[in-house]
């Protein structure tokens, strides 16, 4: 090598290299998520350093304060106009702060708050060895039935780790509908999924079923995540970027600078279609839409009921939010391709969920299939591809999550010697023994069925109206038919509760602490208020109906 060549090597290396710019982070706009994640990390530290006897109280306190603060931050941002006029992209394009994101984050936070209340309930199970216990295993790591489990129960341990896990899940869910590039989307997906898999496994009673549910959820969820990730890779190959805005530009054909490395594959429609389909599949899995619903009944049944309630409400909100953003921001140019597919998915989801639910004999499985049918109704709003469609979906999600958490909270109250009495036959005559609890549950069932004067009706009307206005009249007709089918099994439960003779050995209704009472009370109140006077919330959802790009 000659001297000048070496010299040039030196000088080239000596050139001032481009500095890595420090990322610009809008801490204020990201504060809701940061608060929750920070509290989750704090929760882990609490597990490590706070003495066992006071952990429960500290954890509950931290979780409630964090969620309330985060919700206040969301409200503050929305009031500051970040949902409408000041909507924008934060964290270098990774996170969108706009109307739908804030609305969904607010909903998830409230659902999470009620979730904490049900998680923290310690009066339902009889005290074990003089210590109050909640719905979670004494020591999740001990093998069911083993001596170590017995020792843990005897020592009065409780799994207070559920609170940080819950906060991590909520943190992921807050990012999920706000994610503005595919990698953030995937990371958020994992951040909220992994804690949920764990939470499913830590039931205090029926531990084997609980662990089985967690394994099923984990395996299928991992499979769905893999699909999503593969789809993301294909979309990257298609657009040369994971950013939503860039992909949308490539789809529209308005892209500015083409990366030379990817020029060969860029704009290849096969990549776009297959990649888009795979990402959507991953989201439909989380939503629980047919044919990606197989996990729902088993997981809903096996998971500890407070977890089921939280998961059924908040996961659906987060996943539908992400699905909406993906379809409305990234793939609107592809509408003519995905709409027929989503039509089909919506139809089989509505009908499938409603029909299979009829044969169920377990209340949690019944609610699981009902949640599938509801996913179908929400999809009817998703395919409207109009601002009305977005706001109707937002409203539906808000209304649905409160009904769901309330309904599952009631399920935790009805108990016999083996814990929760979830078999439907045991609910016979509940209306005579505990009229109030039965009446409250009836309100939730009527809301699920979409009877007027409940939030379920307002939500259903909103999505069907949006669908009809976009020309999807057939969806509306199939929607009302599946509502009629669904009404049958909701009514069957009401018949059972009120018109059947109570069984002598039937379950008792536990008197909960104010925590669960609050969760149920808020559920009922929101259900009725949104049913009678939905306008304020419709306005809110209507203002939040525009995605930032």
């Amino acid at each position, binding site marked *: 090598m000659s001297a000048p060549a070496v010299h040039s090597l030196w000088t080239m290396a000596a050139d001032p290299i481009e500095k890595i710019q420090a990322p610009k982070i809008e801490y204020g706009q990201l504060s809701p998520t940061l608060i929750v994640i920070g509290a989750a990390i704090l929760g882990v530290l609490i597990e490590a350093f706070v003495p066992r006897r006071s952990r429960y109280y500290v954890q509950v306190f931290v979780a409630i304060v964090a969620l309330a603060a985060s919700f206040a931050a969301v409200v503050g941002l929305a009031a500051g106009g970040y949902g409408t006029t000041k909507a924008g992209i934060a964290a270098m394009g990774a996170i969108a702060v706009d109307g739908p994101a804030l609305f969904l984050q607010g909903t998830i936070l409230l659902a999470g708050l009620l979730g904490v209340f049900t998680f923290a309930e310690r009066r339902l199970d009889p005290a074990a060895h003089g210590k109050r216990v909640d719905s979670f295993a004494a020591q999740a790591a001990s093998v069911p039935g083993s001596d170590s489990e017995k020792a843990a129960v005897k020592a009065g341990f409780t799994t207070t780790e559920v609170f940080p896990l819950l906060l991590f899940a909520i943190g992921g869910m807050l990012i999920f509908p706000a994610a503005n590039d595919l990698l953030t989307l995937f990371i958020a997906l994992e951040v909220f999924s992994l804690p949920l898999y764990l939470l499913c496994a830590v039931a205090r009673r029926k531990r084997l079923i609980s662990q089985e549910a967690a394994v099923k959820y984990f395996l299928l969820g991992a499979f769905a995540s893999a699909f999503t990730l593969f789809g993301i890779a294909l979309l990257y190959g298609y657009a040369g970027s994971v950013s939503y805005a860039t992909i949308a530009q490539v789809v529209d054909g308005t892209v500015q600078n083409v990366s030379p490395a990817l020029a060969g594959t860029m704009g290849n429609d096969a990549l776009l279609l297959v990649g888009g389909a795979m990402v959507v599949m991953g989201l439909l899995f989380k939503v629980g839409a047919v044919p990606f619903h197989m996990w729902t009944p088993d997981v809903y049944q096996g998971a500890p009921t407070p977890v089921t309630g939280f998961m059924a409400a908040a996961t659906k909100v987060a996943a539908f939010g992400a699905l909406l953003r993906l379809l409305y921001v990234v793939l609107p140019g592809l509408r003519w391709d995905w709409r027929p597919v989503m039509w089909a998915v919506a139809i089989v989801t509505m009908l499938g969920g409603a029909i299979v639910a009829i044969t169920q004999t377990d209340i949690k499985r019944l609610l699981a299939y009902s949640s599938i049918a509801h996913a179908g109704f929400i999809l009817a709003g998703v395919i409207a591809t109009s601002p009305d469609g977005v706001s109707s979906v937002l409203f539906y999600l808000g209304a649905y999550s409160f009904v769901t958490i309330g309904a599952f909270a009631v399920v935790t109250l009805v108990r016999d010697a083996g814990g929760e009495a979830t078999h439907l036959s045991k609910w016979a005559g509940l209306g*005579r*023994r*505990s*009229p*109030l609890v039965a009446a409250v549950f009836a309100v939730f069932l*009527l809301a699920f069925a979409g*009877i*007027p*004067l409940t939030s379920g*009706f*307002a939500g259903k*009307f*909103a999505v*069907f*109206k949006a669908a*009809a*206005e976009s020309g999807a*009249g057939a969806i*509306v*007709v199939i*929607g*009302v*038919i599946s*509502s*009629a089918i669904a*009404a*049958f099994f909701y*009514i*069957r439960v009401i*018949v059972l509760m*009120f*018109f*059947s*003779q109570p069984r002598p050995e039937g379950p008792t209704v536990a008197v909960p602490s104010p925590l669960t009472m609050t969760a149920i009370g808020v559920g009922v109140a929101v259900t009725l208020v949104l049913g009678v*006077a*939905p*306008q304020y919330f*419709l*306005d809110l959802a*209507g203002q939040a109906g525009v995605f930032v790009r």
Partner: protein
Amino acid sequence: MSFPLLTATAVLPALGAIATAAVPAAKRTAAKWLALIVSLGTLALAVTVLMRFDPGGARYQLTESHAWIPEFGVRYELGVDGIAVALIALTAVLIPFIILAGWHDADPLETGSKRWRPTQGFFALILAVEAMVIISFEATDVFLFYIFFEAMLIPMYFLIGGFGDRAHEHGEETAATQRSYAAVKFLLYNLVGGLIMLAAVIGLYVVAGNFSLTEIAEARANGSLHMATSTERWLFLGFFFAFAVKAPLWPLHTWLPNAMGEATAPVAVLITAVVDKVGTFAMLRFCLQLFPEASKWATPAILVLALISIIYGALLAVGQRDIKRLVAYASISHFGFIIMGIFAMTSQGQSGATLYMVNHGISTAALMLVAGFLISRRGSRLIADYGGVQKVAPVLAGTFLIGGLATLSLPGLAPFVSEFLVLVGTFSRYPVIGIIATLGIVLAALYTLVLYQRTMTGPVKAEVAHMPDLRVRELVVVAPLVVLLIFLGVYPKPVTDIVNPAVKQTMSDVHKKDPQPEVEAAK
């Protein structure tokens, strides 16, 4: 702003329902009195509505209009025309009698849980139904109407499924099963009807952009809102299906005999005399006004279905062994007459149909409530278990006979006037159908008189030998109804005066004129 009279008429029973439900478990009698007083208060308000209503005035009166859910284009709009006023009055008149007649129907048999309060629930539910029925009659916003049209199913469902006759020929276990079957059947039929209507309601919104009955009807009349023929027909069918289930029209009627058979007599009256009227009322108010062309298109088919209802209901009534199911089938026959009168598209037919709604309410209430008193004495609904009752309980038998004669439209009693008007109105346009429909009267005479003969005349059966006659409470229920039947039979003018202008309006909505007499046309 003037006093919102129409809102008050609906809100009072609603508040009464909440208050009644909140009465402590031990104070059953207080709950009953509270419900009765509230229903009488509602009656007073309904009478005020009647007095303030000017038959010669604007089409919708006492109107109220407030924004409610702008997002959906929904307004809280109330207003009454003559037809609505008549039906609100009917509802408000009947509910106190229903409450009085059902005074002991919901007394708990066993002292169950301390919190189990069937009595409070029973009367609260009746008042809730009253509130929802009244607001359905008042609503001039399609969405508002729909909400209460659907919501009233829930209290009705609990009334049917939760409360049955004290004694039952097959024992309490079977009775409970049959009751809940009847309640579920009632709810599912009506819910499916309602959901199909929901699709049509959404369709209407997509086409019209709002839900205001007056605005849409006006826009349709002046041509600014055009509907494609097929759209109009689909929407009409969606609405009509729901109303035909509720009314009920053959072949969607099968829930009614179950529901009326299993429910207690006062609840059966509530179903057929009050709630079902919302269906026929809505045909007049919504189907004809919103979809005039489609209504005319569907008329021949509907008339045939109504005719089948008349004959089929009457024939099945003849064959019944159960008193309450007999009255139910008779009602199906009568609803056939009402629907026939509405769709004959003559002013006589429609006036007759509206009058029929009122009269059928009163006559069925009289017959069914007395039948309920009878059944509560013997503990059986089977006709064969009775005989010779008129010798031991002459007053009961006498009022039963008057109720029965009203059902078969004896001249001099109220239903005669309306049935005559319906038949004349139908005959002037559709002579063949009118003639066949008169068969219904003949059959009505058959089933009523045979019912009377088998239960009241003949040798006194041992089981009824010590049957007490009507008690004071029961007399208070029956006597005013009988007086009303006779009064409106002799002097129907007060009702027809209120109803006629509204009917003329409706007729002009569908651009139909009464057919001219042949002689005049020939000139």
